[in-house]
Structure formats: C-alpha cells, structure tokens
C-alpha cells in the first residue's frame, strides 16, 4: 500500500486521512512510545495514560484530514493531541488531586547564559531549555506544570499561595519573556 519503504510521518498522516489502516498502524508503531511517555508524564497513572493514548489516536484517525492545513510539524501535532487528551482526562478525573507547593524564591534568577552558550543551542528543545533557565525558577516551574501537568490557574495559585490574578499575570509575563528569548 505504501508508495515508499520508509514513508515519513507526514506521508503516513496523509494516508491516514484517506482511511488507510496500514498507514495508521505504522504511524502508531513509530509514534506511540513517545506519546505514551507524554500521557504518563501528564497523568502519572498507567491505566489512565493508556486511555488517554487511545483518545489521542482516535483523534489522529478522525482529524488527519485537517492536519497540514494548520501548519504544524507532525510531532508537534501529535504531541499536542496527546498532551490535550491527557490533560482533559486529568482535569475530568481528579478534582481532589494533591497540589505540590512551588517554593517562591526572592533571590534573582541564575544569571542568564551568555551568547556563547546560547549559540550552542542547536535545536528548538535546547533553545527552549536555555530560555526556561532564564526565567526565575518558580516561574519556569509554573510554565512546566501548566503544560506538562495541565495545572489550572486555581491550582497554580494554591501551589504558590499567591492570588489567582497575580498568578495569571506572572504566567503571562513569563510566557512573553520565554517567547522574547526564543526569538533572539
């Protein structure tokens, strides 16, 4: 069925959009371990992560036709679907989850990495890691929790002991700093 022995992910997704189940199986083989890792990280629970992974691939099957029209790389698209499926499950299922406190640190953040260090950031992940390091540690932790754990503003407020509106202002400012750093 496939037109080349090693079709890339974009080609597989295009074929899934044509309801090609062989391509869907190959896409699953090649990406499910990463996406399962993401679901586990968000949910911290194997059974729940398995359900979230299924939700993810159901969405892949149903929405493959709208991929690319949106301008995402294949892995960004897949990781976003997995993260959102896992966060949806997490927010639905455990209203009473324990919020680990985030220590507020009044000291200045570690000095930002110099230009030489930044030049070594070869790919997006490294660049992001460096820019996360430029944020005060507790703010970086808030960004991480918001994405990787699906923490809500209410949970971030509880974790920091700061008012919700303040938390929101902090997070928005941190996101902008992150973006500004990444665009350097």
């Amino acid at each position, binding site marked *: 069925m496939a037109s080349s022995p090693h079709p890339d992910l974009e080609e597989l997704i295009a074929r899934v959009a044509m309801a090609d189940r062989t391509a869907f199986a190959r896409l699953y083989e090649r990406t499910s371990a990463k996406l*399962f890792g993401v679901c586990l990280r968000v949910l911290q629970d194997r059974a729940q992560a398995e359900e979230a992974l299924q939700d993810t691939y159901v969405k892949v099957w149903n929405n493959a036709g709208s991929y690319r029209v949106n301008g995402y790389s294949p892995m960004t698209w897949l990781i976003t679907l997995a993260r959102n499926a896992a966060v949806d499950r997490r927010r639905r299922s455990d209203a009473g989850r324990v919020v680990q406190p985030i220590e507020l640190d009044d000291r200045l953040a570690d000095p930002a990495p110099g230009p030489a260090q930044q030049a070594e950031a070869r790919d997006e992940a490294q660049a992001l890691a460096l820019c996360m390091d430029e944020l005060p540690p507790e703010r970086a932790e808030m960004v991480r929790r918001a994405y990787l754990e699906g923490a809500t503003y209410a949970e971030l407020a509880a974790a920091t002991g700061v008012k919700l509106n303040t938390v929101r202002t902090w997070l928005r400012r941190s996101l902008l700093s992150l973006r500004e750093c990444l665009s350097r």
Partner: protein
Amino acid sequence: MTGTPQPGPPGGEEATAAEYVLGLLPVPERQAFEARLARDPALAREVASWCACFAALTADISEVAPPASLWPRLEARLHGAAQPPLWRQLLPYLLGAVLAAGLAWAAMVTGLLGPALPDLRADLRAGVQGLEISLDYAAGRRTLTVHRTAGAYPPDQVLQLWMLSDSAEAPVPLGIVAPEGPTDLVLERALAGQISGATLALSLEPPGGAPDGRPTGPVIALGKLAPL
C-alpha cells in the same frame, strides 16, 4: 514590555494565544478567542507556534512502549470487533449518505427506478478553508461536474479528486479541479460503474497533481454521491 501600566492582564493577544494552547482561558475568554481565531490566520500561526514551543518541553520525556494489548483495543474502538476491509472505512458522518445510497440501490433492484442509472449529487465541505465543492454526476454522459461553491482555491496548490471504492486497490485519480468555473470530468465506463457506491475524496496536491498517481497531500474533504 515597556513598563507602562496596562489594563487587563499583560501580554496582549500573544500571551492569550499561549493561554489558549495551555487550556487556561476562562470559558467566555476562550470562546471569544476561538471566534477571533476562526477568521484570523495570523492568530492561527501564533497558536501553532506556541504548540511547537510547548511541545519542545516534552523533549526529555522518555519513550515508553505502550502495552501490546492497547493496539487491538484501539482498533476495536475505531472499527468495531470485526475486521472490515482495509483502509476504506467510512467515517461516521458519511453514514447518512451511505444510507441514502443503500436505499437508492434497494429501490433500483426492486425496479422502482427502472433500469436507468440515477443522476447523483454530493456536496463536499472542507473543514478549514471554507471550501465547498458541489459534485453533479450525469449518468447518461458519465460526466462528473465539479463546482466550487464557496471558499478560495488554495494558492500554489491544486485540488485533486479521488474515488475510493471497494473494487479498487488504491484511490483512483478522477481529475484536477480547475481554479475557475465548473470542471467536467468524463469517467471511463469501468469507473462509471463504481461511482454510485464510492466515496470521493478531495486532496491538496502540488501543481500538476499528485506526481505518481497516488495522493500525497492532506485530504480536506470526503463525501459520497447520492441519487438526486
């Protein structure tokens, strides 16, 4: 950031796009944002770029192979317990059209419609670009007429029409939809015999169409022809 006090949360639309991707917007703000997103391509790019940025946070998350039992569960969830024919699964929203085609077929075999093949019609709607395509099939002339009824033709790409049928191994290219005016596609006799039960798919392809006769771009719309 200029340091001047601003009303509302700081960061403007850029930060709101990030909050949207994180799923942090309160419901009314999210709905307002989605309304803007639907008509602002720049905002859609902003959202895509935040998705890429946050996805990079998963770079050091290790791969964990899911249990082997998960794949059959997923298949069963998507396709039911039986093993239907490969890759030609009709999407749920096509069920109405399938039913209509089935009724027409039943009517035909019971002689209600007589021996003449019915003229067929379908409307394809692309989810994202506002494209709407109407298809009219004149059985007597074996001609499929394709009209773009709404939305813009994609720049730098062509729309190619395919037929997915149970008797064909791979999607059969029917032709390229012209950017302007109706396109008449005359079907070979063998294809014409399959068209009434077939699913039609519209994909985005490079200029000149898919190079090796198989779809390469995303499928942006699917539909099934039903009797008029």
